[in-house]
């Protein structure tokens, strides 16, 4: 019996390793290419491991040229603000929908869901008019407000299930102690939903970190730009410099991966509240 289980475990490990290798090989190829001298024309053979000694000039060029450091800092700022407003908006809204009773609740919620279904390609023009009217074009505040609006539907949907699953008795005991709604949210709901929040933070962080179209559309000056925009600049009209493109790409995705590793303890933590994903 024990032996059979060990065999099973081994088999599962082998399968998972195989899946990981397939999933990650292209990334390895990208990183390796970034350490080679490849310009506009791609090499004729796949690069899986870089040739030694490593060619580091791509990184040096990317990092020290064309405001890359400013872009990096901008990305951090705009992402941090975005994640904050995302959290604020979606937690408060999900709390409203999960723990309050008010007329028109389901109607409002269904409108939220409905808007998720219509392609948002053309929304940019109207969003632009709104932000322009608020004089928030070329201003990160505008982008944060925009993200606060666009995250409302999806994130509320996501949190609502988690919040509803938190047993009423816990809150009610707090109310008996004289806590307000806000205090319950801060001291009961949020701590109990940490894993859900961590999950959503990672998603939001991801989306904002790599956002291209919003930044490009709603900021105008070079010094407001972020890494995704800088990355696009490596894809030229006539030429693409692959070595540099991939060096820049590696720099762009690295912090994201590191943050994820930092967050993952929360992210995939055991002991989500019983039935966190609503049954």
């Amino acid at each position, binding site marked *: 019996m024990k032996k059979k289980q060990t065999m099973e475990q081994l088999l599962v490990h082998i399968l998972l390793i195989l899946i990981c290798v397939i*999933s990650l090989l292209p990334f390895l190829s990208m990183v390796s290419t970034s350490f080679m001298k490849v310009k506009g024309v791609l090499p004729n053979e796949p690069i899986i491991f870089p040739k030694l000694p490593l060619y580091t000039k791509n990184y040096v060029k990317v990092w020290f040229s064309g405001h890359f450091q400013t872009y990096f800092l901008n990305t951090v700022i705009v992402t941090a603000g975005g994640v904050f407003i995302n959290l604020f908006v979606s937690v408060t809204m999900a709390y409203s929908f999960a723990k309050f009773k008010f007329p028109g609740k389901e109607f409002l919620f269904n409108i939220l869901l409905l808007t998720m279904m219509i392609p948002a390609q*053309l929304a940019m023009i109207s969003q632009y008019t709104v932000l322009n009217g608020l004089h928030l074009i070329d201003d990160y505040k505008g982008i944060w407000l925009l993200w606060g609006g666009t995250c409302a*539907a999806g994130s509320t949907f996501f949190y609502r299930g988690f919040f509803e699953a938190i047993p009423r008795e816990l809150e009610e005991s707090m109310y008996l102690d004289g806590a307000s709604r806000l205090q319950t949210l801060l001291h009961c709901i949020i701590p109990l939903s940490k894993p859900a929040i961590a999950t959503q933070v990672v998603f939001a962080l*991801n989306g904002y970190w790599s956002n291209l179209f919003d930044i490009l559309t709603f900021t105008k000056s070079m010094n407001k730009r972020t890494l995704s925009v800088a990355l696009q600049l490596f894809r030229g009209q006539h030429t693409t410099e692959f070595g540099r493109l*991939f060096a820049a790409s590696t720099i762009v995705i690295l912090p994201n991966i590191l943050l994820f*590793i930092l967050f993952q303890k929360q992210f*995939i933590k055991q002991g989500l509240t019983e039935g966190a994903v609503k049954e």
Partner: protein
Amino acid sequence: MREQSFSRRFKKGIREWILVIPFLLIGTVLFILFVLYPQIKNIYISFTNYSIMPGAKNEFVGLANYRKIFTDIHVKGSDAYFFWMAFRNNILAILITVPGQLILGLLVAVFIHNLRFGKNIYKILLYIAVICDWVVFCNIVDYIFQPDNGSLVNYILTSIGILKQPVSWLKNTWTANFVIWFCSIWKGFGWVMIIYTAGLQGIPMDRYEAAKVDGANNVQMFWYITVPGLKATTFYLLINLINGAMNIFIQVFLLTKGDPIGTTDVVMDYVYRRAFNYFEFGYAASCGLVMGGVVFILSMFLKKYLRYGQDE
């Protein structure tokens, strides 16, 4: 009597609103400004011959834009033909990438859930593709699917004998569509896996133990405990994944641009190009709304079918 109960209900409603409004207000205002208003304006645009020039007159054209979507559907090369071609590709993407991600994600999640050690390392490794910036991701895909025999995919497939000759992946209809689906599955299943592992943790262990006592095997437990236990999670994923498949855009925009001859196009890319390359904003808006209508009906159907109501 009735009046009174109405006014009482009304007063009660107001009281409830006053309680909730501090929490609801900011999010709702932002939502109305940046999501609802643009979409309502979209509906208006779809009935006009819209010009983006400030102060320009927008001629009201009634249903002309919608009519265009349904005229000459079968005439190769007509506007409607390309729209429905793109629509077909979205449907195919749903049929292929949604089950693909769900099954792969669920299997991997169950595998990982039952591991004794190394859970997190797999989760992290498999999540890298999810985290990766879409632009970066598309560049990598472009790179590994280059058409010569030296590209990663062709090289591996020819050397293990699956392919005899290198394939120009992005230049033929079905191979290019395959690459687009591959993008979705590769980048998406890690997310499905993470959500499922969270869901798996929500299934009480005692159910498995009880089943074991009754002599159930692994497969049976999977079908009779795990799958039903994940019903809500699956619904959440399904809605999101279908949405994702309907909104496929960036990989088409960056990799194929709909070529060859619009056969790999998807609705989002079609709408985008109609609006921003052809300046046909009215027509583009109506295409987007037709698409939205379809997704809406599909979701309602799913909601009813899976009996997942908010207030059961």
